[in-house]
């Protein structure tokens, strides 16, 4: 290693790999991964979130799994929980929707209203 700049470069790269273990996460993406969720396709949705966060170098958001929330007909379901505990629940998720949620909700703070549970119930 020849310089401090090089050290900083390695640090940044390595940080992405371990940021999962830091405790000051800004947001959590909670994916319902019970039998109903998995059957409805929750795994590709979760993988899409992980990939998209990785592409954008976002390391303050973690993707976690949870059990059945109880509204199995609307699976796959995903909840986005912020630091204060405010929740937004997205339903009938797909990997494509996941990409848009990262771009709009996670990055820009705009909730994708058309995917939320409230919208789904109106239909």
């Amino acid at each position: 290693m020849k310089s401090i700049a090089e050290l900083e470069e390695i640090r940044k790269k390595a940080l992405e790999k371990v940021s999962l273990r830091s405790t000051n996460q800004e947001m959590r993406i909670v994916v319902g991964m019970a039998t109903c969720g998995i059957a409805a396709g929750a795994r590709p949705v979760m993988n899409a979130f992980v990939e998209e966060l990785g592409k954008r170098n976002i390391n303050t958001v973690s993707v976690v799994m949870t059990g059945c929330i109880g509204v199995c007909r609307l699976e796959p379901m995903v909840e986005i929980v912020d630091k204060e505990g405010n929740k937004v629940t997205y339903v009938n998720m797909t990997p494509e929707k996941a990409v848009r949620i990262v771009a709009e909700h996670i990055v820009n703070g705009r909730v994708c209203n058309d995917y939320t549970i409230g919208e789904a119930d109106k239909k």
Partner: protein
Amino acid sequence: MQLYRSHVLVCGGTGCTASKSDKIITEFETQLENSKIQDEVKVVLTGCFGLCAEGPIVVVYPEGSMYTMVTVEDVKEIVEEHLVKGRLVKRLLHGEDGDNSDKSLDSADFFKKQLRIALRNCGVINPESIEEYIAFDGYKALGKVLTEMKPQEVIDTIKDSGLRGRGGGGFPTGIKWDFAAKQQNDQKYVCCNADEGDPGAFMDRSILEGDPHCLIEAMAIAGYAIGANQGYVYVRAEYPIAVNRLKIAIEDAKKYGLLGKDILGTDFEFDLEIRLGAGAFVCGEETALMTSIEGYRGEPRPRPPFPAVKGLWQKPTILNNVETYANIPQIILKGAQWFSEIGTEKSKGTKVFAVGGKINNTGLVEIPMGTTLREVVYEIGGGIPNGKKYKAAQTGGPSGGCIPASHLDTPVDYDSLIQLGSMMGSGGLIVMDEDTCMVDIAKFFLEFTVDESCGKCPPCRIGTKRMFEILERITGGKGEEGDVEKLEILAKNIKASALCGLGQTAPNPVISTLTYFRDEYTAHVKDRKCPAGVCKSMMQYVISTEPCKNCGICARQCPVDAISGDKKTPYVIDQEKCVKCGICMEKCPFKAIFKNV
């Protein structure tokens, strides 16, 4: 780059490795493949979490769920339930109710009061990956001192932080460095004392196993500060995992150009070598340690000259303990002020204690100086098992003394412990309950020093042996009038005349037990009684006829056939034959067997 949604951290410290954590890692890899999620979940080997009593320990991120006492058979369930379905395996979670699901690691009582500076990376990073260390600000402090600070500024920062040696003496680290820096010489050395010999203390091992790069970085900083280009780590050969990880770390640091010539593009050069100790306790003493590095028999020599003037190969040398070094990078990064705000007036920062003995949470804890012993024992340590009462805690191992219940609320720091007749030492903390005989404990520690005395000076070689003989006599029920006084005279003389720290502190366990538990000595000598019922020569096992149901279990279990009786005649123990092993008392289902003291 592969991104994972979850990391499974498995403790690879000595304690957890002994309970098969290596097999757990392999099993995780197999089970993840079976569930086809090996690309989503990463298994990471890491250092000690500190809660060794409940090992092997597995922590799953991002949830931070801490699983304890995991077996190879449990792995399948963790993978299928937690990692595939997102349901916590509650029966394995740390905590009584298994309810601390969210951030169990930080919210557990064991961790709440702790402040981890020296241990900050233990249980967080993979010790065999230099990149993970760099990710958590590793080698940043070295970069800072090399490019932004003059050597004297580094020394002043360490001085201002108030950091004192964590190995036992508590000498201010900055002043030590200053002495060595002021010496004019063509060659100077930086040494690390990792010859951790106190019975029960294992914080240095945990740092070497969990965060070896931290030591390398700190020693390079020390080299820059005093003008040395060569360092030696003296580590005991009984720590194979620690030695191995340190070797890997040194090789990686060399590969990355963080050891060797022109470090980080500056003209600073520093190299590091490992020297293995062969298991002599006296080699933890600084002059003996350096003699041993030079290749001679490890024996101490008189001071002055101090190592900072004439140390290794007669060259100016600084020698610090592993834990002391582990604080250095953080002090450089966060500043002297930050560090000096933690702790008490004269003892700054934190101290790692290896808590053992009669306590629920055996393990490693790092607490701010000034935390009371009560908090350590009852809050972090989880109290004493089986509802027994606290009797005393031994700090400082064979060089220290005991602290009785009346001083439980003393804030723990260097000076308060010395006032109580004990010492910080390297940080072993052995908790004793009411079933402990203090004379027996003093004898135990003295036996250790008799064994480990190098034999160079007579006060230590002969004096400790004489003290041990008296203690053997007292615990054997043959104590004589005046024995206690003889012990006191011997202790005083050995302390005053022994050559090195080992001998000078060897009488401490006797002196402090005499101060706080003199009545127990008197009971042994005058009444021929051991109040705690430990000294076998002075107690008997007896069967009480009332609760005894004549089941005969005791008679069948007795290894020397000392118990006789049948359904009609009451069972009795033949005291002539009895070897006082206690098996009968342990096996009796009706609690009909008692110790008669």
